[in-house]
């Protein structure tokens, strides 16, 4: 868990820990890799566009993980630059944290990142002189006030076509700074010097500036839980909800906007968090009357959940006069997209029919047009008249079953029966990077083990002592977009 605090409230020990961790990463060359990741990204792919916020959320998250590693403190968080109280005389600019303004020529000569102690690099990774700052001298004489932050926090939707610096109304565009009071850009330009070009992560205050940006986004998400990331589709590649973002490596979390939408699941805690509970997600009970709902503000998206207890065919649908768009997510993961649909139901309603294994699923409903509002109802029914799909059965110590993940987000379910308490091994083989979960006994729901690469090469393997009963193995591709063949087998021992 990363605990992110106002930089001006850090204790002397916390300041020393943060500075030491930054300098340790610099000595390892890791810090400069972050500078290059930003400097060599496509500028318009990570700025001036919807992915601006998720790209930088993932970017500072990755640095935070490295800071935690070198400091040995799993709770170390990047401090945030509270602009309203972070002017030139604030304590964050003292010599034990960031150091202060540059001299008459712009060269920083105080603090731990002063000339002689810290060298910036250019976009080729070559040393390029000392850190430079010139507070308020580059066209932005003041920092954002709390009133201006509050003004931006009231803007919806998240973003709007044409998805660039002209987007309006757009929370993203106001927070980035191209319209409205200008928050993020102003932080960069107010510091000036090394904070002006694409190599701006050369100045550690870059990460504090973006931590504040990320906090404002987080606060906005808590305030407007039904205002989702936009665009889901239809934007430039790299900007849509499920697109991989530019210059974002695969890691502990995925490279798409949808992978970083929830700060809580990323383990991020802000020091001013009030402990407000997460909004409850309305539950749909399969087979009951559809739930009435509405999109009350343009760009809003509603989230519902439902529990599938048994593998089978299910239909998720909307009804009513609105042109809805439905996205099915799960199982047990709000970021794993299974399918989406626009007009598969009656009139302009959306509808998805799909074989689902046991677990909790999520339906995200929005209107096809981000500029309209409307009412609808949403429901889920089991396709009882259809023949129940048969779950393939594995025989202990029998031959392996050959199968494949043939579509993105697909998962395959297998049944096997254990008659004697013993240690058993469930494993995949082949060239596909499989991910395996084990459920049971006598239920598809409780997950008792999971594995990614425990087998040969990128295959999954679970070895576990289990009691008699029916067990279920679920296989998916490690990548939510991946496909490929594999073989699965269960053996004793």
């Amino acid at each position, binding site marked *: 868990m990363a605990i992110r605090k106002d930089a001006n409230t850090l204790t002397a020990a916390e300041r020393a820990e943060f500075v030491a961790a930054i300098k340790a990463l610099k000595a390892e060359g890791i810090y400069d890799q972050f500078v290059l990741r930003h400097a060599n990204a496509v500028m318009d792919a990570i*700025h001036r566009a919807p992915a601006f916020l998720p790209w930088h959320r993932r970017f500072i998250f990755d640095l935070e993980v490295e800071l935690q590693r070198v400091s040995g403190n799993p709770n170390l968080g990047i401090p945030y630059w509270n602009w309203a109280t972070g002017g030139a005389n604030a304590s964050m600019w003292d010599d034990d944290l960031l150091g202060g303004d540059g001299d008459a*020529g712009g*060269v920083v000569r105080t603090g731990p990142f002063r000339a002689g102690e810290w060298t910036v690099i250019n976009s080729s990774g070559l040393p390029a*002189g*000392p850190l430079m700052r010139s507070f308020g001298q*580059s066209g932005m004489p003041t920092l954002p006030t709390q009133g201006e932050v509050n003004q931006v926090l009231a803007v919806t939707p998240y973003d709007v076509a044409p998805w660039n610096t002209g987007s309006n109304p757009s929370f993203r565009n106001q927070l980035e700074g191209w319209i409205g009071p200008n928050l993020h850009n102003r932080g960069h330009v107010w510091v000036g010097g090394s904070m*002006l*070009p694409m*190599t701006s992560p050369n100045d550690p205050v870059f990460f504090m500036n973006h931590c504040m940006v990320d906090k404002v986004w987080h606060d906005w998400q808590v305030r407007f839980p039904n205002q989702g990331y936009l665009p889901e589709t239809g934007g430039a590649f790299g900007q849509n909800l499920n697109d991989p973002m530019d210059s974002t490596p695969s890691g502990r979390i995925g490279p798409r906007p949808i992978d970083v939408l929830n700060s809580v699941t990323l383990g991020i805690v802000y020091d001013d968090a009030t402990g407000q509970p997460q909004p409850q997600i309305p539950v749909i009970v399969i087979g009951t009357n559809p739930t009435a709902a509405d999109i009350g503000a343009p760009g809003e998206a509603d989230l519902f959940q439902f529990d599938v207890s048994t593998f089978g065919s299910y239909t998720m649908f909307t009804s009513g006069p609105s042109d809805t768009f439905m996205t099915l997510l799960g199982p047990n993961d709000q970021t794993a997209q299974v399918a989406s649909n626009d007009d598969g139901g009656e009139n302009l309603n959306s509808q998805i029919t799909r074989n689902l294994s046991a677990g909790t699923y999520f339906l995200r409903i929005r209107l096809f047009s981000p500029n309209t509002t409307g009412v609808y109802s949403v429901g889920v029914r089991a396709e009882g008249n259809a023949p129940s799909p048969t779950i393939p059965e594995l025989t202990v110590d029998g031959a392996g079953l050959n199968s494949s993940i043939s579509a993105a987000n697909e998962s395959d379910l297998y049944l096997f029966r254990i008659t004697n308490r013993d240690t058993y091994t469930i494993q995949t083989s082949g060239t596909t990077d499989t991910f395996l979960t084990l459920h049971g006994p006598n239920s598809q729901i409780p997950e008792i083990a999971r594995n990614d690469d425990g087998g040969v090469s990128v295959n999954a393997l679970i070895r576990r002592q289990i009691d008699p009963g029916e067990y279920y193995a679920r296989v998916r591709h490690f990548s939510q977009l991946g496909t490929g063949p594999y073989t699965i087998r269960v053996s004793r021992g």
Partner: protein
Amino acid sequence: MANHKEVLEGCTIEIRDDDHLTINGKEIHYEHNRSDGTWSSKYLPYTKYPSLLVMARAIVRDTVEFSHVKE
């Protein structure tokens, strides 16, 4: 069409035909937003400038690719 050439902080800025910008011979790509009359460049992602020349001077002054500050 106007041409312009100047040396700023040791760097040669050259603009040909009002729209072809080079700094020290290196071609600089930029965007010109005609609706708001601004210029911007990937070198300086947080600012838009009121003219191509003002932007070119900022690139020379503020990017580590072109500025050469000694410690």
